[in-house]
Every structure is written in C-alpha cells, then in structure tokens.
C-alpha cells in the first residue's frame, strides 16, 4: 500500500459520507471539465439531489429493478468452488443474471430515469467491453430515446457480439479511431460529443468516474448490490460476510458491493485490478502502477509518464482496460479501508475456466479477475470465513476471445 499524507490525518467517523460539496473524496474527484459543460453538470447535480428526495423516483426505480432487470440478484453459495479451494465459504453475488448480463444496467436505469426527468431525448455513452453500451442501448430502446455509443475501434473488433447487440437494440455505435482506440479514447470522444450537443444530450457514464456528481451518483445506483448482499447474507448465515472481493476497472461493480459495508470494520474488502501481462509489463492497474493525476473530469490514480501524458492500459479484459480508477477507490486505498490487489491476464483466464467447470457459470473476463484472487485467498482462510465475490457479468461475450487464446477456432 502506498504511503500518503491522507493517512496521517485522523480517519473519518464514517467512510460513507463522501463526496463533499465540491465532489471530493479526500483529494480525489472534483469537476475538471470545460466551461461549456459546467452549467450542465451543475444542473445534473441539482436534478439528482431532487430525485434522491423524491419518493416517486425511488418507487419507479424499484419497480423497474424488479420487473425489468430481475432483481434482487441471487446470493449463491458456490459449493464446489468452496470444496475445491478448501478454505473460506465462497458466495457469488449473481449480477450476471441481471437483464443484459451484467451489473451495468443498475446504473443505466438510474441515469435514464434522470434523463427522462430532465427532458433529454438523446443519450450518449462510452463503452469498453460493450456491457455498458448494451445496457444503455437497452434502456434507450425501452424508453424510446436516441442512443449513440462510442467504442474504441480495437474494442469494436474484440467484442463483436456486443456491437451487434447494440445495433439490434437500435443504437448507433461509433468506432473511435483516435488515440489507442480503446475505452479512454471512447470517453474522450463521448465528452467531445457532449460539448457539441450539450443542449439536448444526456451523457450516461458507465462507471464511478468522471466529474462530480457522476462518481457518487453511479455508486448510489450500484449500491443495490451491497444492500441486497447484506440482507441475503443475514438470511442465509445469520451474520455479515467476513470479506468482499470484486474486480476494479473504473470500479462501479466493486463500489456497489463495498459501499454499504464500508463502516463495518470487521468486513475485509478487496478490489482486484487488472495486471495484464504483469505489474512489470503492460497492465491496467492504476493503483499498483499509477500516481495521482487529472483526467476525464476527476483527480485519481492514473497510469502516465513523467510528463503527465496518459499511458495506455493493457488488459485481456476490455472492460478493465482503462488507465484510471474511480476517485472513491483512490481515496479508499489511501486511507487503507480497501486493499487493492491485482490479477494477470493468465490468472483471469485460468479462473474463467475453473468457474465454468466447477459451477457451470461462465464469468465475464472482468469478473474472472476477482475469481482469480478468491482462488488465492480462500485456501488461506478458515472454513467459517464468509467471502462474497461479485460476479459482475457473464462471459458469453468473451467466449470467442478465450477460444482463440486456447487455440480453438469457432
């Protein structure tokens, strides 16, 4: 863990009160955007604050969660994985069973309901693996909104099934040719579109990053994951879990699971970054290999060179292939509340295969990073240790890519 001046200060009474009125989590977060966007961001913040206090907004969201997304998602005891590992009792939070196949839809539902309140007719989004793009295209289809998804040209090639799904759902997919043609560049292009079409467009950001109010707002929409887990674990085991673990790209599935437990001091919390080819090679582990900087509207840990130029991340998983991390994670790292680990491409592919064979569940390559660390941690823990891993997405989209890696042509 990195030394930080933040740790020299007294810890807060609660880890759950952020962000502050300036959108900060400690030194992280903020509103580092062009003036053109500032009035809109302030309007969005006001609209979200009003919606939070409006029972009708919560009732509408609850209804769509139940009847459209299919929540609550199960908390499932992974019996054979647990036996195989011979230690902690492993539970999977089954976010891959949500409509559209990942946790992304939790956030998109909230933002699309907000966009409707604001009278916006056009929705834009960035996407890496395509899961957020698919979720956004889905909700836009449901509510009859125009949807434009920006996706790096490299990701368009490696996530072809999701590209086709988005088009089926009526979205326009724009392959982004600038920069490294992955998620970072898709976000740049989405921001450029937003500046250009600021009057009628709602930017549906897919993770807990970007300018305030996005990191806190997206976290709130994703916290349903942890809220349900608390209740479900109480019902199944009569107590809280001992540890939580989730993969972290931007970090929305992770913060969604973690946030409701941050003040439960006995719950150990682990985030898993993508170590790519390894921490000494190309990777996407912003906390392990990055430093604080400013990009895409917020201050956070970033992969960059000594001049502050952003470096390309690398991960086998398009959804984790981003050179930054949500600002709240940066803060949770510095204050020591969450421990951030990393898993390599190879470890993730092994975990992908292991979970498929032992539990009959093909995880997304993103989620396989978390499984990889379960494989490492669970055997070291006692049998009465309750560990919850967020199975954030299903792996159907990754099957062609993994087949190719394993030398099978489909």
């Amino acid at each position: 863990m990195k030394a930080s001046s933040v740790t020299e200060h007294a810890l807060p009474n609660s880890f759950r009160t952020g962000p502050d009125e300036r959108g900060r989590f400690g030194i992280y977060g903020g509103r580092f955007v062009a003036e053109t966007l500032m009035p809109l961001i302030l309007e969005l913040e006001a609209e979200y604050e009003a919606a939070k206090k409006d029972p009708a907004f919560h009732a509408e969201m609850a209804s769509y969660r139940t009847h459209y997304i299919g929540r609550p998602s199960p908390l499932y005891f992974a019996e054979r994985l647990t036996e195989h590992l011979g230690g902690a009792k492993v539970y999977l939070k089954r976010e891959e069973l949500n409509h559209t196949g990942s946790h992304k839809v939790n956030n998109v539902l909230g933002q699309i309901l907000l966009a409707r309140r604001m009278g916006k007719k056009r929705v834009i989004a960035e996407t890496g693996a395509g899961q957020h793009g698919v979720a956004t295209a889905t909700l836009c289809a449901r509510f009859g909104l125009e949807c434009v998804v920006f996706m790096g040209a490299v990701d368009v090639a490696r996530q072809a099934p999701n590209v086709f799904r988005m088009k089926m759902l009526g979205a326009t997919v724009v392959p982004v040719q600038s920069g490294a043609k992955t998620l970072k560049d898709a976000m740049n292009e989405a921001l450029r579109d937003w500046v250009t079409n600021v009057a009628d467009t709602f930017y549906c950001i897919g993770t807990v990053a970007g300018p305030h109010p996005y990191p806190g707002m997206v976290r709130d929409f994703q916290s349903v994951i942890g809220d349900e887990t608390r209740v479900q674990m109480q019902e199944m085991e009569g107590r809280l879990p001992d540890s939580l673990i989730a993969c972290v790209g931007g970090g929305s599935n992770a913060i969604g699971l973690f946030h409701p437990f941050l003040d439960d001091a006995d719950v150990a919390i682990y985030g898993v970054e993508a170590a790519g080819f390894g921490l000494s090679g190309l990777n996407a582990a912003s906390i392990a290999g990055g430093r604080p900087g400013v990009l895409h509207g917020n201050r956070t840990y970033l992969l960059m060179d000594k001049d502050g130029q952003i470096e390309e991340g690398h991960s086998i998983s398009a959804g984790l292939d981003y050179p930054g991390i949500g600002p709240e994670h940066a803060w949770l790292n510095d204050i020591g509340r969450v421990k951030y680990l990393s898993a390599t491409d190879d470890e993730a592919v092994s975990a992908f295969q292991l979970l498929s064979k032992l539990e009959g569940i093909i995880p997304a390559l993103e989620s396989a990073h978390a499984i990889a660390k379960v494989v490492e941690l669970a055997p070291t823990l006692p049998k009465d240790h309750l560990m919850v891993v967020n199975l954030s997405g299903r792996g159907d989209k990754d099957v062609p890519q993994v087949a190719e890696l394993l030398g099978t042509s489909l």
Partner: protein
Amino acid sequence: MTTRIDARFAATAAEGRAALVTFVTAGDPDHATSLAILKALPGAGADVIELGVPFTDPMADGPAIQQAGLRALAGGESLVKTLDLVRAFREGDGATPIVLMGYYNPIYVYGVESFLADAKAAGVDGLIVVDLPPEEDEELCLPALKAGLAFVRLATPTTNDVRLPAVLQNTSGFVYYVSIAGVTGTATPDFDVVAGAVQRIKRHTALPVAVGFGVKTPEHAAAIAKGADGVVVGSALVDAVRGSLDAEGHATAKTVSAVTDLVAALAAGVRSARVAA
C-alpha cells in the same frame, strides 16, 4: 506594472483594430521547426501567441489540434521542452505576449508551484487551462495570479448571465469567448450571434474579449474582428503545418511559410474589418 498582454491589447485598441491571437502546438511538427514558427509569427502579423501544450487526451479539441499534439508527442515534446521554447523565443522578442494553452494534468504532475515559477522565469505571460472551471480555482488559477501570471478564462455559449460573474471573477489578461458549443476547429460560428455574445460579456467586464473556435479564414477573422478585441485562430494554422509535411510527416522547407502566409492573410483580414465597416 503593465503586463505584456495588457500592453498589447492597449496598442491594438489604439490602432482601432482587434488583436490577432495565433495558436500553434509546441513541438509541432518537431521542436526546432516549432521554434522557427514561433519566431516568425510576430513578423507575419500575430499580436499574441497561444502556445498549445501537447497532451495525450485533449478532450476539448477537434481532430486538427489532436493530431498536432500527437505529432509533437511523437517527437518527444513535453511541458519542460515547451518552456524551453518560450525561453528561446524570449531571447529575441520581449514584447509579444505568450499564453500557454492546454490541460491540467501535465501541470499538476510537474507541480503547480514549480511550474508557475519556471513558466514565469521562461517568459510566459498567461495560462489557459481548458479543464479548470472556476469551481477549481484553488488548483491553479489563484496560485497563478499570485505568481504574476494571467489566468485567461473561457466563456462559452452555455455560460449564462447568472454564471458569467463567477467565470469573470478571477479572469485576467483577456476573456476567451468560445464561439460555438463544441470542440476546436469544427463548426463555423454564426457571426451575428457571436457579436451579441461579445457585447453581453463586455457589459460584465473591462477586459478585452477575444473570440476563437471555428475561425478559419481571413473572412471569418474579419467578421469576428468587427466587434471583438481579439480573434483566435488555431486549427487552421496547425492544419497548415500538417499540409506542409512530407510523406513521412517531417517538416519541409515550406512548413514555416505555410504558417506565416496564413497568419499574414489573417492579419490583413483583422486589419480590414473596421476600415470596411
């Protein structure tokens, strides 16, 4: 003490014309050619120089300036080298104001206090940092003002009268009015709408108002110059750099003149504006 920026806008106002503010990217297409372009700009008719600091992720820029930044980075340009360029320029020109324009991350990583000291010592007059709105003034704006550098703020079509005073509060040097809701070098603004917006801003501030984004030709420059105190041209100039390069993307004998020819034409456009009117 009168700053170089104040003196220059006072001088152009005294001549009864708008100032021509020229943007080029530092290190584009390479460091040496970039210095040659800088040195040639004032003679060609540039009144103020905006020097773009290359950044990998220029979120407010269109394709022309994105590509200029990538050319510069490929050639090894950095914020340190950008300050070297300014220092070298200042050896031969003590009067033309230089405003650095870019994004916050390279400055943040350099270290705000040391950057401000080094920029001031190199001969930089002001800063335009696209991703620092007034809400983040404590980051760089207030320290810059304290260090004696101007902090030039962008006002945009979405900056309404309620917000304008906050935007203008810590602005110095001049106000940069962004003529369109959009990124640099794309749409052409509606000149009547821009003229109205400039008048609106001038009701709130005594600072000069320069207008940029989408100003490409001498005719555009002339149209803007009728009502504004300055006209900013950027994408068209970096496009001129690009058009002069050889097949491998290297500078040619025509690179400097491609820029200065366009600057001369733009300067003539700016000078003709109020004569014609």
